[in-house]
Each structure stands twice: as C-alpha cells, then as structure tokens.
C-alpha cells in the first residue's frame, strides 16, 4: 500500500480547518509554500513546520501526515546525504536546511490535500470562473490517484507472480524491470479513462460550459480571517527576508554550527 501518496488523500472530518472554504485553504498553502522557498535558515523553517503541524493537529490529521513521512524518509535522507557530501562549506547546516525545506513544502501541500476534497477544490475553481471542462480534470486527477496506486500494486504483484524479481539486479536490470510495469499500467489507465468518459457522458457532462454548483461556496468570517492572516504573514515574511536583521539571524545560526 502506497503510504507516500496517502499524504495527499482527503479524509472527511469535521474540524475548523476542514470547514474552511477551499480558497482560504489555498491562501494558507501559498503562504506556507512561499515561506518554505523564501526562508533560508533552519530556525525559520522549523517555525514554519511547527505552524504547519499545529494546523494538522487542528485538522486531526497529524497521524496520517506522520505515517506518510515514513514513505518520504528515503527522499529526505537522499537530500541530506547528497548535499552534505557535495557542498563546499557549511555542509551540515545547508543540508539540514534543504531537507527541512523539502519537508515543509510537502507538508504544506499535505495540509491542503488532507483537508480539501478534490471536488470541493473544483467547486472553488468553478466559482472563480474556471469552466467545468477544466475543473473536472482536477477532480478526476486527484480522485484517481489512489486507484492508480492500487493498480500499480496489482500489476507489480501479477508480474512478481510470473517470476519477475523487482528488487534484484543492478540498476539497469531494475530500470528495465520497472518498465515492464509501465505498459500494463498505461493500457489499463487508458481503458479506465474511456470508461470514465462514458460515465461522464451518461451524466450529461458537456452540455454547458458553466453550471450553478449544488454546494454554495460562501466565504465566512473564518475564511476572510484566514486569507487576511495569510496575506499579512506572507508580506511580512517577504519584507523581513531582505533585511539585514535576517542576515544577522542566519549568521548566528551558522556560527553555532561552526564549520560542520
């Protein structure tokens, strides 16, 4: 079972975060992603991560996030190792920072996707003017990610039952073995998309470009508060980032790490 993809899977829960309008959650996502990319030091990124985890706790989704971190641990370790070994100076600090940035980014998206259903996102996009043809692409892509993961697992099982050892062999053999998975996967998903298209036609899809959505999306006080706070914090982050105060802060951390 693919635990890495689970980090992006929506679970329906009744928490303040789940109840926020998708557009408000999107603003939060922008804030966290931008902050993760702009900020360049360990302490600030830890702060970002702490804020994200706090939100995950509010959303009662910290468990799912932690479980998926296990799946990401390989990538994180790679980032750490590669940077530590190849950078000229400040290796430990930079390596840790970059790894932490990766975690912050994925967690930012995780906060969004764990609390926002694919079709809610689509409704929000439609409310912002996106034609239904395009919003449906979002809905479908997100909704079928778990199916795709499951199909990949089944295909891999079927091939292993025919004697294919996916774990063994040198890099070239392994890559070739994994390509054996691609053909059935692509064919299977193409067939599936045909079936989905038939079902969409059967539900009258395509009659109109824009439709009145069943679920009314209205921005409430909490949503405005979230959007306003996100915008403010983002502005502050950008502003602070280019001050000498920030540079001093970074230098302080570097000095703690010494020449590691």
């Amino acid at each position, binding site marked *: 079972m693919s635990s890495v993809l689970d980090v992006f899977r929506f679970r329906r829960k009744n928490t303040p975060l789940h109840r926020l309008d998708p557009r408000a959650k999107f603003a939060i996502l922008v804030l966290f992603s931008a902050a993760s990319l702009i900020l360049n030091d360990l302490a600030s990124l830890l702060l970002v991560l702490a804020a994200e985890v706090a939100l995950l706790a509010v959303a009662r989704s910290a468990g799912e996030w932690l479980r998926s971190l296990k799946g990401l641990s390989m990538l994180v370790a790679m980032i750490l190792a590669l940077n530590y070994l190849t950078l000229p100076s400040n290796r430990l600090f930079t390596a840790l920072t970059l790894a932490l940035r990766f975690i912050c980014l994925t967690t930012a998206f995780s906060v969004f996707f764990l609390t926002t259903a694919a079709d809610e996102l689509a409704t929000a996009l439609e409310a912002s003017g996106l034609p239904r043809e395009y919003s449906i692409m979002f809905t479908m892509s997100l909704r079928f990610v778990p199916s795709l993961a499951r199909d990949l697992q089944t295909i891999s099982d079927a091939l292993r039952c025919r004697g294919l050892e996916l774990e063994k062999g040198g890099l070239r053999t392994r890559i070739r073995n994994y390509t054996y998975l691609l053909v059935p996967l692509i064919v299977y998903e193409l067939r599936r998309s045909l*079936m989905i298209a038939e*079902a969409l036609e059967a539900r009258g899809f395509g009659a109109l470009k824009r439709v009145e959505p069943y679920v009314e999306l209205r921005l409430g006080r909490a949503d405005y508060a979230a959007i306003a706070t996100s915008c403010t914090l983002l502005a502050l982050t950008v502003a602070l980032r280019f001050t000498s105060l920030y540079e001093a802060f970074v230098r302080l951390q570097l000095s703690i790490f010494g020449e590691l």
Partner: protein
Amino acid sequence: MALVELIDVHFRYAGSEEYALRGVSLEAEEGEFVLLVGPSGCGKSTLLRVLNGLIPHFYEGDFRGVARVAGLDVPKTPPHVLARHVGMVFQDPENQLFLSSVEREIAFGLENMGLPRSEIRRRVREVLELFGLEELKDRAPYELSGGQQQKVAIASVMALEPRVLAMDEPTANLDPISALEILSLVSRLTRERGVLAIVVEHRLELALRFATRMVVMDGGRIVASGDPRRVVLEASRLVGFPPVVVAHQLLRNRGLIGGAPPLTPEALSEEILGVIGWRR
C-alpha cells in the same frame, strides 16, 4: 410509438472491419424489464450504447438504420440530451463515481443539466429517499460496499428522471446477495415507475426471474426475443440453462412434466410437488 425503436441498425466501429451490429431491430415499451444476453462479442454492449447515443457520437463509425428513443432520433441528438431520457449504469462502480459524498454524486448530473439549485435540492432529496440512501448521503462513495456503490450509481442517473435505464453487466463484480438487491431494485423501478430497464447480464440464475422479456444476441443480430421461459429453452446453445431449468428438462424428458420451465427454486419446487402429488 414505442419508447425504444431500433429498425435494422447496422454499426461498424471506426477502424474495425467487422460489423458489430448487423441489422438489429428492437422495440421496447415502458415498464418492461428486458434481459439482454448472448456470448461475449455478440454486440449487446454495442446495442446498449446506441440507446444513449454513445454510439454514434462518442464511438464514431459507420451507422445505418433507424434508432429512436423517446421520440428522439439518436444519430441527430447529442448524448447530453439523450442522457435525460436514457440513464446508463456500467459494470465498475469505481469508474462511475467521482465525488466526495453520495449527495454530491447524485447532484452532479443535475448540475450538468444546468438546473437551478432549488430544483437540484428537491430531486436529490427525492432520490435519496427513493433509494434508501439518506443515511449514506455524506459518506464518500469509495467507502461503501460494492452493492451500495451500484445503488448510488443507479440513483445518480435516475436523478435525471430518464424513462429508460440501460445497464451493462451491473452485477458482475457483486456478491449474489447484493446482485439480487440491485436487480430487484431495478425491477421495482419498472413496476412502480414505468421505467424501461434493459439489462445486460450473464448470470441467468440471478437475473432471469426479474425479466419480462429475454432478448438473445449472437454475431451482431438478435436471434431470439420474448417470454423468458420460452426463450431460455430456445437459446440454451448460446447462453446455457440455469440449474432449475436443467432439472426441469430432465423431468420433462422422462415425461413427468410439460409446459414452460421454472425460473426460480420456488417455481421448481412447486413443479416437483405437482409431479409427486399427481403421481400419488
């Protein structure tokens, strides 16, 4: 005028050399439960797709003949218009259910029709009640059992209030109890709401008891059509017999019974009681 009218329909998929439908003529009225059977490749799925316009609009090819549903000329009517008259349910619920709650799923088709929100709300409520899905309305379709999912799929197309319900092997992935639930739900729709149901199924032992008509296809043609109890004997070479019919035939060959075969264990037991009682 019949609800569904196919007259000498020929169809060849683009890029294919063989004709999938070779002169199919069929008339069906409201309230019927038509069981459409035949060996793989006989054209039953193709025939179904003519009903809601997937053929020839979505699947292009060489289409000849007359196809009319609810008075509309199929080749001249776009699928999204036909969707209001013919609801289609497919085999795999996973590829028909897209949204995050049962309620939204049912509303989806209605949204696509451009109906005002108040009308959508009314119909969703009605459909949830009709199918006994109120308790599940906030649940995600992927959390439900296969039988429940197919119920939601049916509800989602019935919300558009079509007069025809076309189903392509709807119980193939379901256990027998869920399969019977679905088929009997469809039968109820035909009897209580006058819906015309055209159902493709392989499991005769489950589906035959609900059918008011059995239509058998082979090689792109309809080779038998009529009372299930008669047709099941005529077409046995193509679709086999359910076990109760085999038992009936054995007794008949011994000269102990005559008449039309039973389609259910209950009917068979009645027959046998007759045989024993009569002899005693």
